[in-house]
């Protein structure tokens, strides 16, 4: 079917009727998970339409700042005041700066209601936030998947680590993941390219902590989506070894780190089975009551505001966690008056995130004859050591942490005139600096939710979301424990000038929002089954952050990628069996 549609052709709106707007599958969203859904479906021969609400971004061509030198940014990366005042939300993001601002959504482009303060950071373009992510790719362990069942929160995951492990391997090999085989059951090894190096002080801290805590706490090099040694599969994608430029958020002309734009989407286009349609804001998913299934997707043209329906047998929702909730909540029919598949009223509820509030810094006065050379797009990582195998504290779950050290190099900035100039021109080594930040698991709760506003609309006429997500007592205890434990570890390792912080940032700024359309075993208490398939609408799959039953502590993107590939594989098998028509 659909032989009349060519992958590069623009589909003219409303002019060719239903047949030309019909595909076998539709994927909503081209970010890190949607790219995978599209690639897997197209590669398996499924005629797929990939919808993206933002503009197109083509690899290399659309990275306008990628080769600019620091002095070419007229405000040296600082955003003008007018912009930060008009955009108080996105301006809080660490990555929002002159070289990367064009990959972020302006606050007024897509307004929402903050019932509780929530910084919703978004990237509306082909590739989504995969252009901007921090590229950390730690696997979950069985202790993470088993969490809700063991500790009695949320609902039991319908999948185990063993179900997902082969799919982790599958996506790791294609994406290119660098890491060290650390042999930790609490953070399983993957299909690793050669690891980055821990530096002298990081290695020292790792050794000290292992000794002081009898091998129960680990400092390892992060696993990250950087090609440290290009394999044939990477070269075939047109991607090369990472060059350690560490300006990834501009887009990488080498394809050194994984994005949808450099990897999955061009790969899917090459199959001839993918149609990419940009500037297409999804309004809702169409449900046909007679057929008892979803039949398509209603799209608003971002420029003309014209509405068009597209049809398919299978729909993958990868719009990013909160937007996936929004689309499903806005997909109203008399069968589903409260949102698609929402028979139990739980759609939009049990939203959770990662707690990034606390951090610690210090100095180390050793290794004064040593320094580092070059740059590293990665840092040290401390896997969760609290409550991993049994409950040990008065709070549930725990936190992972980033850890990094570097040698201070500075100049003397005192004085005026020639004295100052001489001081500036003389670079001197200072002590090593050390730092860490927490990544805390938050407990999904019914009271942390997103819901449609009954009155307010966005510029496309789609209801605005009301977001109600906040910290709880468990999070406060965890912040306190992180600061206590890290201070103790820093002190025991001989670090000095130790400073702790709790910046009380709002939820959302972690950009790890998850849940609202959670997976589970029971249709009464969850929205998706073990294949990320809606219990009540089996031809709709959700494989982005919205599907998450709990959050664990790991940066989540790798897990979304694995879910997407696994779920697409299942969907295609079901289509072949005639179960999804």
């Amino acid at each position, binding site marked *: 079917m659909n032989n009349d549609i060519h992958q590069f052709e623009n589909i003219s709106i409303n002019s060719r009727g239903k047949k030309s707007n019909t595909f076998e599958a539709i994927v909503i969203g081209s970010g890190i998970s949607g790219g995978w859904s599209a690639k897997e479906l197209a590669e398996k021969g499924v005629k797929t339409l990939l919808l993206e609400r933002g503009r197109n971004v083509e690899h290399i061509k659309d990275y306008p700042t990628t080769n600019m030198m620091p002095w070419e940014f007229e405000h040296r990366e600082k955003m003008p005041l007018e912009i930060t005042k008009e955009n108080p939300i996105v301006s809080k993001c660490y990555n929002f700066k002159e070289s990367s601002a*064009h990959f972020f959504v302006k606050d007024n482009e897509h307004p929402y209601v903050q019932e509780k303060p929530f910084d919703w950071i978004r990237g509306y373009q082909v590739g989504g936030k995969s252009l901007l992510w921090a590229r950390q790719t730690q696997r979950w362990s069985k202790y993470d998947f088993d969490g809700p069942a063991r500790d009695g929160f949320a609902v039991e995951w319908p999948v185990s680590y063993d179900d997902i492990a082969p799919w982790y391997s599958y996506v790791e090999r294609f994406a290119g993941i660098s890491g060290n085989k650390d042999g930790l059951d609490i953070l399983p090894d993957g299909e690793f390219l050669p690891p980055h190096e821990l530096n002298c002080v990081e290695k020292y801290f790792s050794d000290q902590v292992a000794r002081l805590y009898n091998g129960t706490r680990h400092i390892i090099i992060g696993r990250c989506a950087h090609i440290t040694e290009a394999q044939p599969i990477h070269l075939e994608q047109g991607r090369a070894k990472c060059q350690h430029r560490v300006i990834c958020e501009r887009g990488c002309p080498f394809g050194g780190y994984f994005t949808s734009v450099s990897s999955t989407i061009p790969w899917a286009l090459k199959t001839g089975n993918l149609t990419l349609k940009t500037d297409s804001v999804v309004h809702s998913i169409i449900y046909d009551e007679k057929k008892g299934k979803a039949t398509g997707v209603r799209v608003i043209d971002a420029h003309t505001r014209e509405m068009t329906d597209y049809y398919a047998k299978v729909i993958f929702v990868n719009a990013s966690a909160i937007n996936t909730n929004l689309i499903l909540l806005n997909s109203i029919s008399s069968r589903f008056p409260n949102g698609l598949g929402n028979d139990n009223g739980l759609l939009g509820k049990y939203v959770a995130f990662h707690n990034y509030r606390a951090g610690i810094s210090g100095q180390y006065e050793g290794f004064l004859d040593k320094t580092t050379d070059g740059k590293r797009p990665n840092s040290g990582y401390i896997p969760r050591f609290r409550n991993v195998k049994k409950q040990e504290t008065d709070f549930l779950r725990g936190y992972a942490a980033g850890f990094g050290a570097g040698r201070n190099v500075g100049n003397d900035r005192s004085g005026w005139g020639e004295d100052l100039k001489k001081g500036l021109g003389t670079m001197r080594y200072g002590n090593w600096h050390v730092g860490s930040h927490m990544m805390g698991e938050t407990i999904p709760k019914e009271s942390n939710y997103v819901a449609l506003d009954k009155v307010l609309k966005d510029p496309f006429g789609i209801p605005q979301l009301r977001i109600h997500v906040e910290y709880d007592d468990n999070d406060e205890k965890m912040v306190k424990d992180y600061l206590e434990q890290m201070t103790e570890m820093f002190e025991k390792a001989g670090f000095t000038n130790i400073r702790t912080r709790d910046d009380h940032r709002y939820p959302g700024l972690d950009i790890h929002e998850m849940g609202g359309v959670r997976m589970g075993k029971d249709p009464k208490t969850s929205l998706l089954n073990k294949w990320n398939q809606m219990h009540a609408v089996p031809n709709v799959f959700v494989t982005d952050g919205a599907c998450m039953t709990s959050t664990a502590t790991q940066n989540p993107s790798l897990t979304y990628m694995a879910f997407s590939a696994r779920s697409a594989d299942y969907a295609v098998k079901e289509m072949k069996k005639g179960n999804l028509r």
Partner: protein
Amino acid sequence: MHRRELLKTLTGIFGMAVTLPSWANGWTSTGLSGPDLLSKEQKRLLSDLVDTILPKTDTPGASDLGVQHFVELMVQDCFEKPVQEQLGAGLVRLDKEAQNRFGRGFSTLQSGQKLDLVKSLAGKKDSEESAFLNSVRNLTIQGYTSSEYFMTNVTKYELIPARYHGCVDIGS
């Protein structure tokens, strides 16, 4: 691939992105016309001030690197209105102070006189003059140390390091 070859390849393939497409410029309102916060006279004073802070020696002075434009642009685009007003007003006051002490405008002073004047005013604790001069000083340092000259010759910025070694001897 050797680094030099790589650089050559990169320059060949990608060139240098000097003009941004319209959507990339969508965030900024100032274009390339340069700052217009100060009058011609004030611009002149600022240029003399940044050269007093970082003078030309056997290496370029601040104004040789266009640091005065950077300072004006930053104040114009990245600071609140009162700070913007203070820049022009502070420069005028500096000129007046030169008139009071030396009977001549700031720009016509000898470089030693300029430096003495600036240092003495900057040293007055909690004064408006001190606040003004120290903020210009900070921006001058930022502009100077983030200039192409400084980052190429002193801090030796590498766009493509292509390596990370975690523990090397200093000096090796």
